[in-house]
């Protein structure tokens, strides 16, 4: 038997400092590569971009680069195109999110019911999500093109259009083009998330409610909706931010035109940077956009707080 007294246990030195340090460092070692990459490719440019907002940075002008204070913001406050882009962003985001959510929810409810061939049906209706966005944009632009696409002819035949023209070049209707493309592409996102939430609802709740005499509509209102509410809230809120910044479809389909009628803030930023190579002005708009998004997030947090307090 090797009983040890407390005294000779104390003789052992404490674990060396280095070794303890290594133990504490381990999670940081695992996450360091990702963090370094995020910092250099996202945080540094973010800071750099914020500084551009106060400088004159134009790629084509070698004498640019000087500090100009709030000039960009003054110009921005006079920029009618920017105000139009803000209004368009609201319209684009509101319509896209609402339609995606509405049709996504219906699709999720349809798919929640077991039926033969559900797996394959699900794969087919979710397929648009996998279609690259640039292709989605081109594809719908072609569908709206009266030369090779059927849509103008159908809309004309239905009496919705006066002539089989391209709605993408009609200032009144152009925004509908990217919105339709966006809805087509985004329905699966909502359907998938909502379907997952639906399938997490315990089945016996429905059975219990049915035994208690609740009709289908009552069951939907008293079981399904309350269960879905948190998922709906979070996906709609996050999706709103995401779609308001989603410029790919617009850049591919209309490039902001005709006459800036489809320009949203994100595509306006891209146009300033990409077409006009005015990085300073683009960064100033970015900064305003960032502030608006921060305000939106704060509002959501506040809303959440008041809702939590009310319970």
């Amino acid at each position, binding site marked *: 038997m090797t009983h040890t007294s407390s005294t000779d246990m104390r003789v052992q030195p404490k674990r060396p400092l280095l070794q303890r340090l290594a133990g504490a460092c381990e999670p940081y070692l695992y996450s360091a590569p990702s*963090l370094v990459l995020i910092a250099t490719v996202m945080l540094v440019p973010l800071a*750099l971009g914020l500084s551009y907002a106060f400088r004159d*940075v134009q790629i084509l002008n070698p004498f640019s680069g000087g500090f100009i204070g709030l000039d960009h913001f003054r110009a921005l406050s006079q920029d009618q195109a920017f105000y139009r882009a803000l209004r368009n962003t609201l319209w684009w985001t509101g319509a896209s999110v609402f339609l995606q959510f509405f049709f996504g929810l219906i699709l999720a409810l349809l798919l929640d019911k077991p039926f033969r061939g559900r797996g394959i049906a699900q794969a087919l209706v979710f397929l648009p*999500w996998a279609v690259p966005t640039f292709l989605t944009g081109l594809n719908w632009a072609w569908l709206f093109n009266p030369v090779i696409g059927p849509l103008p002819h159908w809309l004309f035949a239905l009496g919705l259009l006066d002539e089989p023209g391209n709605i993408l070049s009609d200032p009144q209707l152009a925004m509908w083009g990217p919105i339709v493309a966006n809805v*087509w592409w985004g329905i699966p996102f909502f359907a998938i*998330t909502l379907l997952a939430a639906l399938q997490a609802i315990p089945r016996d709740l429905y059975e219990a409610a049915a035994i208690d005499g609740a009709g289908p509509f009552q069951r939907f209102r008293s079981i399904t909706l309350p269960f879905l509410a948190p998922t709906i809230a979070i996906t709609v809120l996050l999706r709103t931010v995401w779609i308001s910044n989603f410029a790919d479809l617009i850049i591919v389909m209309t490039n902001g035109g005709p006459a800036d009628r489809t320009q949203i803030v994100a595509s306006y930023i891209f146009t300033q*940077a990409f077409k006009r190579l005015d990085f300073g002005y683009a960064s100033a708009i970015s900064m305003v956009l960032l502030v608006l998004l921060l305000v939106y997030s704060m509002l959501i947090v506040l809303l959440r707080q008041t809702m939590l307090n009310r319970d």
Partner: protein
Amino acid sequence: MTAKSMVLTVAHRLAILAYIVFALFPLFWLLKVSLTPNDLLYSEGVRMWPSRVSFDHFRFVVAHSDFPIFFRNSLIVAGSTAIVVTILASLSGYALSRFAFRAKYWIVALMLLTQMFPLVMLVAPIFKMLSPLGLTNSLTGLVIVYSAFNVPFATFLMQSFFDGIPKDLEEAAKIDGATQFTAFRQIILPLTLPGIAATIGFVFTAAWSELLFALMLISGNDAATFPVGLLSFVSKFSVDFGQMMAAGVLALIPACVFFFLIQRYLVQGLTAGAVKG
């Protein structure tokens, strides 16, 4: 079956069918036009299927255009991004899943924030940063940028896969004589293989689709990715619809392949912060 439930069932199937038609019609049209010979393209207008199909457009696109180069570039960029991101995200996802450490909260917050903020505002500064390094007009530059954009989402995705593996397993491995890292490599990673494949699929799809940064950073044909090449083709030869759509069908192929691979993991992918939102 009562008459009422019969009607409901039929309505249900019809609704599903309507969704399927809506989802597939644009892709069908893409394929249809790409197979329609030029001489029928305008004369047959909105017919559902041309009276004669030909593969001329595909032949042209593959043999006489730059699309094979674009395709190769996109494959390289998307493939490398997927691999780089999956390696980094495995490590950081593991840290988030298995360790309780002080900065964890801040790391999660940072990664969530990067999912929220408008990447388009980084277009200009990133261009400015990469151009003195010679990383504009280069596939490497794109891989670096895309990797950074996809790491946060992939980290959350990998974390959710690691969370699904019982902690007991690596504790058993540690008692068997493994270090934390050996346990990670020999026990946890092999068990996460399906998750790793799914992450590769998600990141590949995202990188394959990226447009804005590719447009900004790439100017020559040599380093153009598929979206950039297709868009410049569209603006230059905007009447060669058959060829454009044949190129579009080609761009669709890898996306579809990966889609069917990652189908089972869509829910996990979208809730992890979502590739495309």
